[in-house]
């Protein structure tokens, strides 16, 4: 039911739109949608967000849905949800139950649509009717064979799709029947109905993992999480081939968002948390060490659950930071000594504990971690603080929390900005990288000159061609690097693979180690030969290693290689964005001359017949030629 405030929010959105207050209108629309995420208001929310195109930053994204059931009423919900995450979705729906034909026909509307991502939503009952409703009619061993046939078709569709499209593919797995045909007897058998479906789902994971850019969506777990009996609506299925209850459609839309948000790159790199009543119950300044609620039992368990969720996020490479209004000594004492704390100071990459304004603290944290404000998520129990951050820093992803602290951990875990579709080795070690970075910063202060510091660092750069092990990380870097990035070209894994296959292009990665530790794979260059020139298509470096001269080492290597291949000129565009100022002087600083300037950016040129780039003596360069990683 609508709350009292929603009609007012609706009017307020209209008023703000009329007054051209675009950011406030978007904020209120988001609030309206969160208050009532239903079919009744989806059309309103979508149509008003459409008016905000060009006025607020929105990432366009093309999504095709191949399906064996009616998804049309879910699309407005999905688009409303996507708009609230800054994504402007164009959706193409495949013909009813025609997913196989559309995948197999290279001329189909699916491929003409040129989607960024495709969802393959097929129900167990549609792809495997013999396993779903005719199970008891199957002969001995019939279930296993039927299951194998389904696994083979799904594997086939995935392979055929990938041959025709570079788009990401999100494949639903198959849901279990609500009532196994044999009742409790089913669980007594190894070759049961349930087990057959499980085996198909296992085979699907294997098929997906063998094909780049294919992801499995655990539809069965989604249905189970919300209750099988409440999920399905048999009457709607018979009436309109819509198998999902009206109030559960939003849950499917949200599950899809958990894939679409990471695919569009609108993810959070760090979560910034409040302390009092967020990481523990109570106020440390008033309740003291023994008074705050934090432990394995009620009520402190709610806060341990939040901390556990945060630890899980940090294992996915998401940085943790604190922004709270406390006396620093009180807060640090809890962090270091409280027996109920799962998180300790070493788990946090940055801390701002003071009485200052939170938006100030968030800005400082972003700058200390060298990430954009729009990469921060903010977790605070206080609605006032959340509202203030929304108002002053609209780029920050503010996480809404329910009244009950026992719902906090789920709110954190459910937020799509923390989803990752693949994990690189770098992701899992990120917190360590930041700890090493702090040691480096302390060491740097002891040196008189930068050169002395560079020598002390003993940096080793490993420049390598692409290997299967580094492909995901290379693509990830092109997607995520905003600051030291000359052209900000984004590449999927499939696109990087295609570049590697192309004999006239070169993709290199750079990995840096120094006396404090391993930075991991932190830079990428992509170059293309054409006639006498070699053009730098991409050159980017993670912010962790900016200002350590390793960019010069990589550029020098590129120039040498291009000359060795007989190229006479090295060209490179600098295409300015809001964020890539750190790379603006890159070409000029390395002796390139300005060759051209237009509205998009500037083109720089280096004459390889006369000039080379001197590699810094304090960076030891090791080159590795693919395949042996």
């Amino acid at each position: 039911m609508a709350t009292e405030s929603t009609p007012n929010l609706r009017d307020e959105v209209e008023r703000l739109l009329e007054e051209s207050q675009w950011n406030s209108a978007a904020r209120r629309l988001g609030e309206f949608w969160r208050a009532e995420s239903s079919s009744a208001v989806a059309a309103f929310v979508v149509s008003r967000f459409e008016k905000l195109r060009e006025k607020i930053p929105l990432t366009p994204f093309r999504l095709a849905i191949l399906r064996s059931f009616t998804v049309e009423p879910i699309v407005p919900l999905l688009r409303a949800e996507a708009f609230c995450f800054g994504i402007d979705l164009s959706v193409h729906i495949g013909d009813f139950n025609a997913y196989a034909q559309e995948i197999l026909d290279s001329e189909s509307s699916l491929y003409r649509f040129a989607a960024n991502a495709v969802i393959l939503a097929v129900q167990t009952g549609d792809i495997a009717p013999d396993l779903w409703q005719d199970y008891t009619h199957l002969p001995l061993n019939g279930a296993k064979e039927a299951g194998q046939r389904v696994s083979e078709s799904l594997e086939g569709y995935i392979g055929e799709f990938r041959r025709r499209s570079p788009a990401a593919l999100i494949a639903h797995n198959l849901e279990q029947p609500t009532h196994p045909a044999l009742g409790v007897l089913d669980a007594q058998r190894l070759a049961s109905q349930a087990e057959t479906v499980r085996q198909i789902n296992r085979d699907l994971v294997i098929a997906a993992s063998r094909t780049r850019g294919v992801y499995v969506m655990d539809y069965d777990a989604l249905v189970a999480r919300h209750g099988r009996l409440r999920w399905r609506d048999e009457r709607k299925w018979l009436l309109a081939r819509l198998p999902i209850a009206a109030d559960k459609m939003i849950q499917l839309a949200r599950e899809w968002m958990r894939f679409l948000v990471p695919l569009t790159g609108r993810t959070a790199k760090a979560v910034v948390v409040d302390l009092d009543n967020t990481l523990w119950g109570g106020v440390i300044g008033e309740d003291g060490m023994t008074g705050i609620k934090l432990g394995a039992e009620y009520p402190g368990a709610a806060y341990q659950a939040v901390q556990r969720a945060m630890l899980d996020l940090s294992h996915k490479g998401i940085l943790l930071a604190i922004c709270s209004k406390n006396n620093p000594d009180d807060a640090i004492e809890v962090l270091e000594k409280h027996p109920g704390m799962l998180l300790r100071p070493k788990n946090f990459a940055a801390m701002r504990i003071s009485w200052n304004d939170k938006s100030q603290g968030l800005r400082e944290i972003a700058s200390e971690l060298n990430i954009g404000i729009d990469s921060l998520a903010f977790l605070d129990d206080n609605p006032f603080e959340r509202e203030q951050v929304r108002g002053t820093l609209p780029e920050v992803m503010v996480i809404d929390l329910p009244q009950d602290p026992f719902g906090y951990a789920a709110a954190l875990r459910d937020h799509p900005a923390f989803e990752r579709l693949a994990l690189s080795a770098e992701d899992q070690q990120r917190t360590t990288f930041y700890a090493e970075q702090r040691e480096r910063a302390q060491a740097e202060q002891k040196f008189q000159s930068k050169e002395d510091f560079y020598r002390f660092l003993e940096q080793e750069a490993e420049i390598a061609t692409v290997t299967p092990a580094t492909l995901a990380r290379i693509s990830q870097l092109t997607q995520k690097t905003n600051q030291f990035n000359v052209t900000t070209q984004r590449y999927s894994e499939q696109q990087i693979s295609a570049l590697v296959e192309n004999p006239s292009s070169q993709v290199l990665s750079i990995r840096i180690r120094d006396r404090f530790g391993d930075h991991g794979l932190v830079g990428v260059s992509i170059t293309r030969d054409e006639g006498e020139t070699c053009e730098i298509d991409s050159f980017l470096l993670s912010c962790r290693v900016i200002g350590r001269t390793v960019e010069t080492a990589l550029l020098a290597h590129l120039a040498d290689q291009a000359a060795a291949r007989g190229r006479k000129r090295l060209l490179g565009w600098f295409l300015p964005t809001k964020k890539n100022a750190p790379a603006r002087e890159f070409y000029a600083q390395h002796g390139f001359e300005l060759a051209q300037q237009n509205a998009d950016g500037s083109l720089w040129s280096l004459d390889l017949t006369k000039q080379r780039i001197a590699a810094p003596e304090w960076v030891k360069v090791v080159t590795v030629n693919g395949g042996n990683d």
Partner: protein
Amino acid sequence: MTVFDQIRTIASDLFAIPPGKINAASSPENIESWDSVQHLNLVLALEEKFGLQLSLEEIEQMKTIGEVAKIVEGKLQTTAG
């Protein structure tokens, strides 16, 4: 807001026409965008908004906004009583 007004708001959003142009006699005959997909959307929106379940017979009877309101009001009274 009365039930009729709430239904009018939903219909106005779904069919993308101003609420003022919707009355009890509005039907798929005189609202071009009221097609079978939007009819399904209307059913789903009503079920969610008013927390009720519409039977196949009721869904078929919903041929004008007036009939929609009558069916919804009738169901709300039975659940309330």
